[in-house]
């Protein structure tokens, strides 16, 4: 598909180019400010800046001390591991796989059923994180829905899920909250798969699994890549849901990197160390993006 606007637009429009450049400037400036703040975070990461006390004003550069601390002190590596577990199970296994299954199941249906389920999925997406966190804390608490409706009648002693299975519960909550996005993206991707190709594979004797694995998945590979890129990064840096549900606890079982960063910066008050954590996170996110973008580019 050729886009008529892919190169310079027609001479009829080019007269107003200076105006247009001027029009784009404020937005670029604004986004530039965001990057400027990121730069500051990098600068802070080499200092011993603190939130309160003497070092809030009288700070000095300490070289890479904060970065050494990431690896020598307890906390960062454990937290990184928690974050990776959380991201892997809730985004990649949960949202993406469940989203794909729902999309490929529901696309055979039209009308009210699909509509209803889509709305249900979307509601999770639309809810504020804080409300979702409350919903899940309430549902899984000792007097909550799961205990009352499912375990109680079965005669099982009430379980305080947020205490005993904290990480599993936050992972479930995040799957619940985020599946809609993957679903919508995969739905759109599957609608673009030409029917004849699938039919042809069927005529050639490919069964359902083979058709999915060998025909459909390769076609929608770019969409899978895009989806993975977004949800991995979002989940990796996701803060409010876990913070409101567990605050990182019990202990540090659900302390993902954003929460670790938040606590080191604003509870402990070590802003320099906190900045080093955020720079480390940026680096990890950067590596992930490059990985996924490679995956996307490979075959054209």
């Amino acid at each position, binding site marked *: 598909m050729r886009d008529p606007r892919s190169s310079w637009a027609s001479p009829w429009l080019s007269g107003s180019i200076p105006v247009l450049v001027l029009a*784009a400037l404020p937005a670029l400036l604004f986004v530039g400010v965001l990057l400027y703040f990121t730069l500051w975070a990098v600068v802070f990461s080499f200092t011993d800046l603190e939130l309160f006390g003497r070092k809030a004003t009288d700070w000095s550069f300490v070289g890479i001390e904060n970065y050494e601390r990431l690896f020598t002190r307890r906390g960062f590596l454990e937290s990184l591991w928690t974050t990776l577990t959380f991201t892997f199970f809730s985004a990649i296994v949960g949202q993406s796989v469940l989203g794909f299954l729902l999309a490929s199941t529901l696309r055979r249906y039209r009308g009210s059923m699909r509509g209803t*389920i889509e709305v249900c999925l979307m509601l999770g997406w639309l809810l504020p*994180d804080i409300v979702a966190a409350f919903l899940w804390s309430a549902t899984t608490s000792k007097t909550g829905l799961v205990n009352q409706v499912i375990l109680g009648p079965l005669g099982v002693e009430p379980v305080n899920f947020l205490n005993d299975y904290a990480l599993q519960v936050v992972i479930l909550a995040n799957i619940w909250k985020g599946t809609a996005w993957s679903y919508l993206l995969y739905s759109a991707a599957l609608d673009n798969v030409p029917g004849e190709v699938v039919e042809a594979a069927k005529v050639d004797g490919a069964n359902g699994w083979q058709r999915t694995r060998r025909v459909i998945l390769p076609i929608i590979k770019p969409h899978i890549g895009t989806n993975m890129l977004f949800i991995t990064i979002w989940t*990796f840096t996701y803060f409010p849901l876990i913070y409101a549900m567990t605050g990182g606890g019990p202990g540090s079982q659900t302390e993902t990197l954003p929460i670790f960063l938040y606590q080191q910066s604003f509870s402990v008050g070590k802003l320099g160390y906190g900045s080093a954590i955020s720079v480390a996170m940026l680096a990890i996110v950067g590596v992930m993006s490059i990985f996924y973008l490679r995956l996307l580019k490979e075959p054209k």
Partner: protein
Amino acid sequence: MARAVTPQRKAINTIAAWIIGLLIFFPILWTILTSFKTEAAAVAFPPQFLNFDWTFENYTTVQERSSYFRHFWNSVVISLGSTVIGLIIAVPAAWAMAFVPGKQTKNVLMWMLSTKMLPPVGVLIPIYLLFRQFGLLDTRTGLVIVLTLMNLPIIVWMLYTYFREIPVDILEAARMDGASLRKEIIYILTPMAVPGIASTLLLNVILSWNEAFWTLNLTAAKAAPLTAFIASYSSPEGLFYAKLSAASTMAIAPILILGWFSQKQLVRGLTFGAVK
């Protein structure tokens, strides 16, 4: 694309899909129901589904104890303010990128969108310090500024995908007929751009309304919007299910209503225009 599906399989799929749909919806429904119960009924065993004494006392308590309407108003000001300012900045930019794309336009757009990939915690410390210095902590102005900054890339991107669908030929025709840039904007572009702008506005109001990271970190009591207000309810004194449910229901009601009426536009917005 009709595929032969056996009736049993179809039935199983249907049931599975419905169960998933209901599972997803049930916690929300339960919260709304709980908001009409007394605290005792909220934790009663066996759970009461519809056969409880309906009461509105939670709603009045919530309003009395923590002035719901003030937080509601904060939410309105912050989400509308940041969206409108964002649109004012983004419309010209998206317009320029969609109609006079240069060689770098795609790259610039990707670069803008990639800032959305930065973890917000990464810029929290500089912004916090800056706000402390300028007295912007716990003010609506401060939050409007931050949310505008954060949502701008999405606003530009969304508008761009909408503007690109406006046929460029019409603009050329207008030029040939001697329309000035100003007239072109008023009589041709604006009417065609309104639907796109409207959906962008809607999505961003919802995103800002739901925003929790910045509102939790940069507000205390004065400028706290509804999300921060709910968070303050849940922590110290143990969970008051019924009251918290009432607070949550009030916080999500506008979103649910908005969302219900604008599903199609939202789907498109949420997926950055990947879904038409």
